[in-house]
């Protein structure tokens, strides 16, 4: 049994990761961190580079948790996270959410929203706050 964290290399991802680690510790479960990109922009700051992946892995392992990181280019980020939840039979998924204005909702489909709606397990939606940075 696992806890799946949808992690992006920004403050929202950091919040999700911090809460995911806390939940995994409480429930004594393994952690799966998903950091994937559509790869259609030349630069995607939410896609972590190898150094960041190494730092996150080290930080989580230092807490005594088993962690696996799914990292790569996919067609659809939300679908990849949901697929990871299904295949690991996760008990909990953690996503970081951001405030969206009405116009923002119209223009952009939210990955977090689709994970919340499509995931077969409970989803914990967290917001960034000061002091939650794990790494």
């Amino acid at each position, binding site marked *: 049994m696992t806890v799946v964290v949808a992690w992006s290399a920004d403050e929202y991802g950091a919040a999700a990761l911090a809460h995911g680690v806390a939940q995994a510790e409480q429930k004594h479960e393994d952690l799966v961190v998903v950091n994937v990109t559509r790869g259609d*922009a*030349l630069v*995607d*700051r939410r896609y972590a580079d190898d150094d960041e992946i190494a730092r996150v892995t080290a930080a989580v392992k230092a807490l005594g948790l088993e962690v696996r990181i799914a990292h790569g*280019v996919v067609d659809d980020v939300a679908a990849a996270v949901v697929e990871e939840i299904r295949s690991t039979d996760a008990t909990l998924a953690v996503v970081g959410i951001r405030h969206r204005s009405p116009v923002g909702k119209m223009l952009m489909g939210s990955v977090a929203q689709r994970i919340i709606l499509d995931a077969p397990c409970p989803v914990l939606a967290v917001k960034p706050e000061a002091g939650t940075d794990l790494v």
Partner: protein
Amino acid sequence: MDLLLDGFATALTPTNLLFAVIGVLLGTAVGVLPGIGPAMTVALLLPVTYSVEPSSALIMFAGIYYGGMYGGSTTSILLNTPGESSSVVTALEGNKMAKNGRAAQALATAAIGSFIAGTIGTVLLVILAPNIADLVVKLGAPSYFAIMLLALFAVTAVLGSSKLRGFVALFLGLAIGLIGTTTGQARLTFGEAKLADGIDIVIVAVAIFAIGEALWVAAHLRRKPLDIIPVGQPWMSKSDWGRSWKPWLRGTAFGFPFGALPAGGAEVPTFLSYITERRLTKHPEEFGKGAIEGVAGPEAANNASAAGTLVPLLAIGLPTTATAAVILVAMQNYGLQPGPQFLDANPKLVWGLLASLFIANTLLLVINLPLAPVWAKLLQIPRPYLYAGILFFASLGAYSVNFDAFDLALLGVIGVLGLAMRRFGLPVLPLIIGVILGPRIEDQLTQALAISQGDVATLWSEPVAVVVYIVMALLLVGTVVAGRRAGAVQPDPENQNKQEVSA
């Protein structure tokens, strides 16, 4: 001098100033984005020539051209992916500098060097263009024919790794240029009445640059995002200035003449500048690890070559780069024929354009030096949005030529040709130059033969023509010898590669 001051009066009107600002902003943006260059942008904007004053449109296009040269360096330095072919060399040292935490200095030396080279180049352009035009005006049709033939030959043979691919592209272009009934007979029209007027160059340019590139990117859409190096405000220390100013001047000296010759614009001079700086540097140990000279020289060279390109364009009507070729199309859309009489016949337009180059250069320094980090944000735009916009404007532009759906079909067909050319590594420049110069060469040839009443000897009756043919012969011999030598040397790099692989 009075003419230039009048030019500033034209260029500083609010409308023209606005177009200059739009031009440099657009130019920097497309320069930053790899795959989208000034040639494609000017091609997409060709429809504006239907409604905008010639001087305003040309001022905007020149701004785009100069801006592209600035913007390309940002991507080269921060991403190690050149934004433009003219910035390939910049990536060698620039990205190493950025990785060592000296991105700010690299961007600064690129921007300031571009400004200095662009300004010197524009001064040279202002001095040279009228004088060359005065010389060229005395030439007859046979000399023109020879000069254009040389331009076609040089652009094809000097550039690129494969001469064969270059000539394939050139003859594709010439074949497209032949379509129509200019001679009274229908050629290559396949009985299609709508081809009788030939294919509008706007459609060819938009299809090759925009559609071809968009299809090519669509075929390679998903890739791992690149690591971009974060950067603050560009600045330079005193020692950076001391190490930069000589490369700037040497880069300018390389860039301007190569831009003015039909040798394909900025690639050759930026490379020569890099080699020279590596040889002359007092810090040879830094080369390959981020030497500021290796950024300063090539970046100055590419801007100076942009200025140099405008000399043959304005004085002879001869494009030497893809962007210059598309700007020439824009002029032809206005019914203007650049050439020796062009400067005398349209003083307001030409001097306004030249004055606007000084303004564009200053604007570019102002918007590039403090805003480089902002421009780098453009790279986060998902490319589907970007290319959807490009395809939209491409279709709109092609349709607005004749308001005929047939042109859209042509756009598609030539667009697929553009994709195939990218797939098989054919250079685009010879094709577009062939399409533009092909009909004009034929024109000069028929004119020369009409005057001489069919005597072919007229083609080498003028001294300039003879000199040009000799230069062509020398070039031919040179490329053959170089090809032989490269063939003899070739086994070496292959061995090295094998060693690298095995090691």
